[in-house]
């Protein structure tokens, strides 16, 4: 069944802040953070979007405004329509949005992941702990300013750290990361190749 455009039209009637969002497939809307819970609640109760399939975080880069966006992927098991709802965090330094865990219990772990990887806090979340990295890990690894190789940190267990005397070290990138150049039509040129920003045994990490 095709996604219904009326969902967006009906939404715009009740919520003046809702605007269309560019999308290649399903209908998508931008919602101001202040209206987010109201919009999600009415989509669930009035339009039958009874399933939250994903909550994804986006970091648009250091200095971008707004820097952090959260995207909710909604699905209706009755009309089989998809809808994407995006909302940007008003504060770039301490990004925060209201939690959708009270509407869809499935939001619980998705929001914990967005918190773990991007440091986006969800107000009203029942148990906002890290879900992938360990409790007490000081960084948010999917932020654009976090290096892929990692940053020196002690291991989660202090007793083990004292025993083995090593912690998390920045991984040797050995010529990587290997990335494909965007927008290249020539497949030879688009082959993944090393970004020359690496360090290894022969070329030590600058500043160490």
């Amino acid at each position: 069944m095709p996604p219904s455009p009326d969902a967006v039209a009906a939404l715009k009637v009740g919520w003046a802040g809702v605007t269309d969002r560019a999308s290649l497939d399903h209908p998508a809307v931008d919602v101001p953070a202040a209206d987010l819970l109201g919009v999600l609640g009415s989509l669930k109760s009035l339009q039958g979007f009874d399933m939250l399939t994903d909550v994804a975080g986006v970091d648009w880069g250091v200095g971008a405004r707004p820097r952090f966006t959260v995207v909710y992927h909604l699905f209706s098991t009755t009309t089989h329509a998809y809808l994407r709802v995006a909302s940007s965090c008003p504060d770039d330094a301490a990004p925060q949005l209201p939690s959708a865990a009270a509407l869809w219990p499935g939001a619980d772990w998705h929001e914990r992941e967005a918190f773990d990887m991007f440091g986006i806090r969800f107000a009203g979340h029942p148990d906002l702990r890290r879900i992938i990295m360990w409790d007490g890990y000081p960084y948010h690894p999917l932020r654009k300013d976090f290096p892929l190789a990692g940053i020196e940190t002690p291991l989660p267990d202090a007793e083990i750290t004292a025993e083995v005397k090593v912690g998390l070290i920045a991984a040797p990138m050995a010529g990587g990361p290997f990335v494909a150049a965007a927008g290249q039509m020539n497949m030879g040129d688009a082959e993944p190749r090393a970004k020359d920003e690496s360090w290894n045994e022969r070329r030590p990490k600058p500043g160490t």
Partner: protein
Amino acid sequence: MVSANAELAYNSKIEGDVVVSRADAVINWIRTSSMWPMPMGLACCAIELMAVGASRFDLARFGAEVMRFSPRQADVMIVSGTVTYKMASAVRRIYDQMCEPKWVIAMGACASTGGMYRSYAVLQGVDRILPVDVYVSGCPPRPEALLDALIKLQEKVKREPSASKLLTA
């Protein structure tokens, strides 16, 4: 393959019920013939480890089929898979709980060096936190490669001065 132990000599006419050998040879023969693995299965390599234990490759031929999920009953930890930093402490703690003598096989590229995961999340080789006896290359290694690693480890154990170690311990 465990060959007949040349150091054990027995002539029933002369010795009756007595077997003369060196303590090292006897201790090491016992140890190499019943190495019980602690399967530290952490990622895709663990699937290959299961194949090694199953009938086609049959780890039992080398006396090492008794996978023990309690470290207290295991002799050799087979680290098969990607060791994340989050898991690293647990791996080390389980190693500490194994009784002496104990050995470690690092199975696959990930356990040996971090493999293709040059990232903030993955320990770059389990030898940073454990003493590794045998490394196995491959992603994943073929089951034969792990059998070979076990045989290499058995050869290594056969050379150990076990008796003097026990006396000085």
